[in-house]
């Protein structure tokens, strides 16, 4: 009994911490500093627990929750994402005189929701996790309640998200009706043994589940909300949503891909493959024409979801490893990029345009160099983490017979290079315009630098020595 709690400790720790933070906040107003420190400590503890529980794979709590293994790796990714977000967020919201306890508590809640998704062994748990995460994100997206764009973003996200949740619930209900179970392995078993109660309901159910989850990942054709929401939400929140949030939604696919889909039908893979291809192309093409940095990153994040989908399509061990690896690599490069956007936005006081990056290398050499690093990594240029992630994904695709999908991925990368190096062009090759804001280099707080340096270090580490994560992952599937 006790060991179940220990095995699931990252999830348990963070859930308890979130509840405690919420109650304490309610009783003690204006305790931002303490909530911040408490949340940070909780996330660090969860990260440590995640590392410790990786070897202890198993099923716990009446086969509701998977523990250890890949779930713990995901926990680690979410926890690190949360830590970096918190550190980047504090100066960002403080600069707008809008620091409140809820922000930190909501980040804790959303991270706990993500962990629940990654641990789910049961469709209901998946659903609860998705709801906990999404509800926190709805609020976080509208956190700047005086800003129209933030409210618009939250409202859009909420309406569409609620709609997608409807699909998901309906799909879960149909799958349950067809198979008589919420448990992934029981569903897969029922399908392969042919003991379904209502076989005709199953494909509809699975399709609806894919729609619901596909919306959360923001893959074609359910990606429309992403650019608007990502653009309008507070930048640090966008960073967290578009990386850890996306990884969490992808983690919901993993048990489906590895057990349920292969039993169900082969054409599920075809659907996923087509969706991945369309996502990659649309995300990248749309990103090319964006003038606003945040919007460009938002579209590119759609494209990156498409890349990660390639690994799901492959569905083999290498493919799933690649998904997790890419999710981790993507977290660092995208979060780093958004943290820089958040810092730059402070000078501009409006949504950051590409033009605002003019001559950044002269004003903030450090920021420009790191931004260039993240851009090259996102574009998939070696030796950065993004390159190895793509290499691994393409290898998985070719291995499973989807060479054409790898080629689409490559074409997407070619397009993406254009807009990623466009940022570098503005930062390094164009001199600051006369009208440029604050020619005086502004000091960046030490705290705001931490997430940048940590992200950059991981982008290089995962690029040059990918085995630190990859060999670890590969052993987990066995």
């Amino acid at each position, binding site marked *: 009994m006790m060991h179940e709690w220990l095995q699931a400790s990252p999830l348990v720790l963070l859930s308890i911490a979130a509840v405690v933070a919420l109650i304490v906040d309610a009783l003690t107003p204006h305790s931002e500093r303490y909530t911040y420190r408490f949340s940070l400590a909780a996330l660090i503890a969860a990260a440590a627990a995640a590392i410790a529980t990786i070897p202890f794979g198993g099923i716990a709590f009446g086969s509701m929750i998977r523990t250890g293994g890949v779930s713990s790796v995901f926990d680690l990714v979410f926890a690190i994402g949360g830590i970096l977000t918190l550190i980047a967020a504090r100066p960002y919201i403080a600069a707008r005189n809008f620091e409140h306890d809820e922000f930190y508590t909501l980040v804790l809640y959303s991270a706990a929701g993500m962990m629940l998704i990654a641990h789910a062994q049961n469709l209901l748990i998946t659903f609860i996790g998705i709801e906990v995460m999404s509800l926190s994100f709805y609020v976080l997206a509208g956190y700047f309640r005086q800003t129209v764009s933030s409210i618009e973003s939250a409202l859009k996200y909420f309406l569409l998200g609620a709609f997608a949740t409807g699909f998901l619930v309906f799909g879960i209900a149909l799958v349950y009706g067809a198979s008589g179970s919420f448990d992934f392995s029981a569903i897969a078993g029922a399908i392969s043994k042919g003991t379904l109660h209502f076989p005709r309901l199953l494909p509809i159910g699975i399709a609806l589940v894919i729609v619901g989850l596909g919306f959360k990942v923001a893959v074609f054709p359910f990606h429309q909300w992403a650019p608007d929401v990502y653009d309008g939400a507070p930048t640090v929140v966008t960073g967290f949503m578009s990386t850890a949030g996306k990884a969490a939604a992808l983690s919901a696919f993993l048990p489906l891909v590895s057990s349920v889909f292969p039993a169900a039908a082969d054409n599920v893979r075809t659907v996923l493959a087509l969706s991945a291809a369309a996502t990659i192309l649309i995300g990248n093409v749309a990103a090319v024409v964006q003038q606003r940095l945040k919007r460009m990153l938002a579209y590119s994040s759609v494209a990156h979801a498409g890349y990660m989908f390639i690994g799901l399509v492959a569905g083999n061990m*290498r493919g799933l490893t690649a998904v997790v690896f890419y999710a981790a690599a993507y977290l660092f490069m995208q979060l780093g990029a958004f943290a820089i956007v958040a810092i730059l936005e402070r000078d501009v006081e409006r949504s950051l345009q590409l033009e605002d990056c003019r001559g950044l290398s002269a004003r903030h050499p450090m920021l420009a160099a790191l931004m260039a690093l993240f851009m*090259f990594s996102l574009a998939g*240029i*070696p*030796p950065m983490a993004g*390159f*190895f992630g793509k*290499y*691994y994904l*393409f*290898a998985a695709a*070719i*291995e*499973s*017979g989807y*060479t054409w999908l*790898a*080629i689409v991925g*490559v*074409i997407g*990368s*070619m397009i993406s*290079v*254009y807009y990623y*190096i*466009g940022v*570098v*062009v503005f930062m*390094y*090759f*164009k001199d600051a315009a006369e009208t440029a804001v604050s020619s005086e280099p502004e000091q960046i707080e030490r705290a705001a630098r931490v997430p940048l340096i940590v992200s950059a270090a991981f982008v290089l580490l995962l690029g040059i020595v*990918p*085995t630190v994560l*990859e*060999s670890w992952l*590969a052993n987990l599937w066995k």
Partner: protein
Amino acid sequence: MASSLLLVVLFLPLVVALILLGIRSERVGVHRWVSLATALVTFVLSVPLYWFVDHGRSDFQLLTSARWIPSLDAGFRIGLDGMSLLLVLLTTFTMPIAIGASIGVVTKREKEYYVMMLLLETAMIGVFVALDMFLFYVFWELILIPMYFIIGIWGGQDRIYAAVKFFLYTVVGSLLMLVAIVWLGWYAQTMTGHFTTDFVKLRELAPHIPLDVQRWLFAAFALSFAIKVPIFPLHTWLPDAHVQAPTAGSVILAGILLKLGTYGLIRFNLDFFPQSAIEYAPVLAVLAVIGIIYGALVAMVQPDMKKLVAYSSVSHLGFVVLGIASMTHEGIQGAVIQMVNHGLSTGMLFLCVGVLYERRHTRDIAEYGGVASVMPRFAVLFALAMLASVGLPGLNGFVGEFLTLIGGFRSPYLNTWAYSVVAASGVIFAAVYLLWMFQRVMYGKLANPANESLPDVSRQELWTLVPIVVFLVWIGVYPRPFLQASAASSRATVEKVLYYSVPQKVAHDHRQRIPVTTISERP
């Protein structure tokens, strides 16, 4: 011992670049002289490699092999054969000259400049020594970043356009190559049970790939390399990049970067896919000949000296590609030596153009005239570079062009001497545009008063130009040490192609050596 020397040559510039990053940018002198010293030391260290590599052997030597990513069997595998040896030496020789020519000329952001130069050196050497496809690709792409910044930050008027074009062209080609690399790894997995990017293992397997797939793989590799060479009609990035890049950037572009493409064609396309290479040989040869003539004709009408030299590169590289497409011993040997020659003579031409540009800040041929009378010593050096480029017997250019043309004549795969006949006319064109340019710039009356008081070459410029002259004459008079170095590996390549050129033998061999898993049986 010898293999650790190769490691030092490869990583010394990178290590120094990282150290320089930590030194404040105000200390310009440190950045200048430390990077120059590093490039010189790297060259001095690389010279003994010539003797460490046994020229009689065609296999790879001075091997280093370390595990890197075991699950994909991507390893840190490096080594040298005669051909890559020559190109490594060309790189280490060119870099101190390029850095030396930049000191005092590059005036903004010097720290970043020298860091980029050293980073570039490691990446270029890395491409030539990599014996693992994954590692090769990493170095191949790593070149892009410093070169992109060198053109984009320190370039001329339209530098941004040129830098972006350069980057996009190269990336488009190389990403398709990436798919081909992964596909090869997967093919190895179906054949041997292990995914691998080990060059030596793959080149054993690759010729057995079914021909219909092999053609695509050949095309993916060839496209990537053809963009880099550049082969007509993929050459349009080259004039922009060359003209906009700073002088040292042009020297490196012409001297080394273009050779990456031709090196890749020999090393990968011929060695991996001999059957497809035979099929594609006429296509390559036609494009090469078009490049020779087209590049020469366009060079003839350029009013800008640098652009003229840039187009002459298109023409000269055409000879290299023709030599490769001939797939004869003479042709490939000619191609390798012509790569070295072109690096030296065109690099020197760019330096000479840079010398004039530093004095007058224009590259317009019409702005000059009669310069020889005020800069007599420069006139001699410029003339040597020009004549070497033309292919005058006694200087280096002649050797390479002659051998590639012979290769084209005798090639059993091209099967007609028409290519060589047309290509030979390119030599005459080269004489026309280069001599005419030289005449308009250096001779005639001193019409423009601005030219009347131009100082002759400085000591710094002499130091960068004279070492090249030594090699121009050396290779021209006594090319044997150079040809001999690459002879064994070029013969091995030719023999491999010849072996697979007999169809029955291929079929027979195919049945014999390959387990019966083919492409149709993939999961």
